[in-house]
């Protein structure tokens, strides 16, 4: 069954406390190669049958209206993935 993957990230200019806390924990565990972390969210919308342009458009609207908070988050990707 195909699914539509929606990825939501905090807007770049918005503080991301989650990412910040993880970023400061990494070096303590010896992971010193990273200068920053931002934490987002991934949604998987399962579709019965074919993903039409109409369904994809619905997913885009759902991503903007429901899955993300447009005040503090950006929808960075809405894409179709095949069977898992």
């Amino acid at each position: 069954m195909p699914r539509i993957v929606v990825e939501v990230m905090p807007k770049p200019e918005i503080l991301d406390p989650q990412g910040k806390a993880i970023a400061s924990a990494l070096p303590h565990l010896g992971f010193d190669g990273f200068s920053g972390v931002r934490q987002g969210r991934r949604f998987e919308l399962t579709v019965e049958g074919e993903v039409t342009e109409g369904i994809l458009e619905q997913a885009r609207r759902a991503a903007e209206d429901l899955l993300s908070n447009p005040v503090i988050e950006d929808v960075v990707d809405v894409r179709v993935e095949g069977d898992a």
Partner: protein
Amino acid sequence: MSTHETSTAFNLDTVSHASDTPDTELPWAELGLKTDEFDRIVEILGRRPTAAELAMYSVMWSEHCSYKSSKVHLRQFGEKVTEEMEKDLMVGIGENAGVTDLGDGWAVTFKIESHNHPSYVEPYQGAATGIGGIVRDIISMGARPVAVMDPLRFGDIDHPDTARVLPGVVSGIGGYGNSLGLPNIGGEVVFDSVYQQNPLVNALAVGVMRHEDLRLANASGVGNRVVLFGARTGGDGIGGASVLASESFDDTKPSKRPAVQVGDPFSEKVLIECCLELFHAELVEGIQDLGAAGISCATSELASNGEGGMHVELTDVLLRDPSLTPGEILMSESQERMMAVVTPEDAARFEEVLQKWGVEFSWLGEVTDTGRLIIDWDGETIVDVDPRTVAHDGPVYERPHHRPAGQDELQADTFRASPAAQSLPATGEELGAAVVELMASPNMADVSWITDQYDRFVGGNTALSQPDDAGVIRVDESTGLGVGLATDCNDRYAYLDPYAGAQLALAEAYRNVATSGAVPKAVSDCLNFGSPEDPEIMWQFAEAVRGLADGCQQLGIPVTGGNVSLYNQTAGRAIHPTPVVGVLGAFDDVGRRTPSGFERWADGQAVYLLGVTGDELDGSEFARGRGHLGGVPPQVDLAAEKTLGEILINASRDGMIDAAHDLSEGGLAAALVEMSLRFGVGSRTALDGVCERDGVDMFTALFSESQARALVALPRSEEVRFTDMTTARRFPAIRLGVVDAQSGAIEVSGPVEGSGFTLGIDEVRQAWSATIPSRFAG
């Protein structure tokens, strides 16, 4: 260390450049300055301001920071004071928060602030950062924050706007406050259509300290170092000032500045513990939290309250967003930041403490005695001002005000004369049904769906919390010394008469604190109003402040701090005047606190009503239920409030009473029911005595909102001692009946056959507890 981009990203506007280019057009109007305000800045500086200076003045001279419309009225809080009021006052209005002596070397500090508009824009983050800001005010006094409270006001309970705002606000308060380990011990939840699009999200925080830990926001000691620590500085809160994105003002670089500030409670919790360790080790000379106006406010206030001068290098500020211009850095309202003044000798130990807690910091400069606040950017001076002119000498307005044209008509429209008063409940059956309906109404209903999302236990010192009359916190574990706190405001009363309304808010908070057994000591207020540019709104404001100041003087407790929130209106529709009043009281031993309900072991105890009941239905909850708002609010009698308070406090101290609950919204009916709902213990009472003594009918006895009243329950063995006390003080007290722990019912009888009723506690509870979850759960 430096995180700033090279200054080629914008054209640096230095002081010398400003002197050389006097005719440059500046966006002062876009930054909210009026013509005469800008002219005054030029006059103060003797030249045009630099972009950075303009940023500082515009934000510090804003209504929010300068109190320019309210200052002339707020002065009364400092003028209408007596010796009694100053007795325990260690720090009054003007500092981050007032400080009151609690005895035994302890002091307490508390303050209410608003975060109204941000909570409308993004309810979760707005409410969360509101808690964060008020808690940092408390820390910056040197205190450990010990509790928070939230007076909340939303639109109509069934309006979509409320459905959007309330859940976010509640989880924001919980999400932030719970993560700080601060018990949430009370507050208010009010629904009224006047708050649609203008919800009021006020937050109160209280902190405690030993006297020697008191810290003030001043930069003393020439040569001492200035440090900024906590979160990095981002573009938060400067969206409206995006004209500063290009400091040359000749082009408009697209600027992406966050519309919303995101709170980081984890960073704040670490900041609290870090600051307390710094205080304990005596490593800071002065400290200031960064809230509105960020570094502009912190540097100018610290400098002007201390030796008078400071010299800082702005490129040393650690940035989250390296594209910020100097002006933006000065205005940024990024959360979870503090500024401190540290002696050079203590600098190394200061750094050790910050490193232990993993808190980032950067040294920005030092205290000077030049009387100038100098801010450099890569060594070039971009700000050179007298800090007092920024922090304290802002504009002051005597805004015109007059009694609203419709005020007389409003006051003439009494409940009794209105159509709403036709066919009032009279029979026992009707009265019983009206009581259940009242308790299920949005403003009387159970708010535990909201307050159960807050941690009320953390810290192990919470002796009372919602739904009791006051929140009570133990301060000293060895003695039981502690504080009681309540916040109140009936906006409907304030709308009918702002002077009386403010006093009624004060009276109710005072009464709530005294009902818990605490001796009222101090007041903090959060004055929420519409636009001060509307003379009718300004009249409401002026009247409310005058009422509050007069009331505090009569009660003998000072206003120690607070906050003014203006412009709470949308499309010309203003909120009701809402002067939220917080009263703080003291306990020698919180073990003596009085619960608000009948306890299970109290079967057979006597129930007394204190105070007189008049025919006062205007502005009442009953009238609200019938859609009526008019007339004049209940009469204020602060002398009676004071006597009632003394009775309740003495009765608590001497162990005479085992339960007490004040009468306010919903009158006797609500108080009687609430005392049973608290622990599921019923009562049998007869109101014929009250009806006869006060000349009122059953309906009025139940629903009138006359002030200076309370219900108490006491063992029969204490009745003589208690009534001797009320008689000696000439305060009316009448025995209504007894606590009944067996019946599971609230039984009320009236003067004539058939005017009484019996309500099952479970039945009332069902109606009372369903209202809020039915709208917001799921």
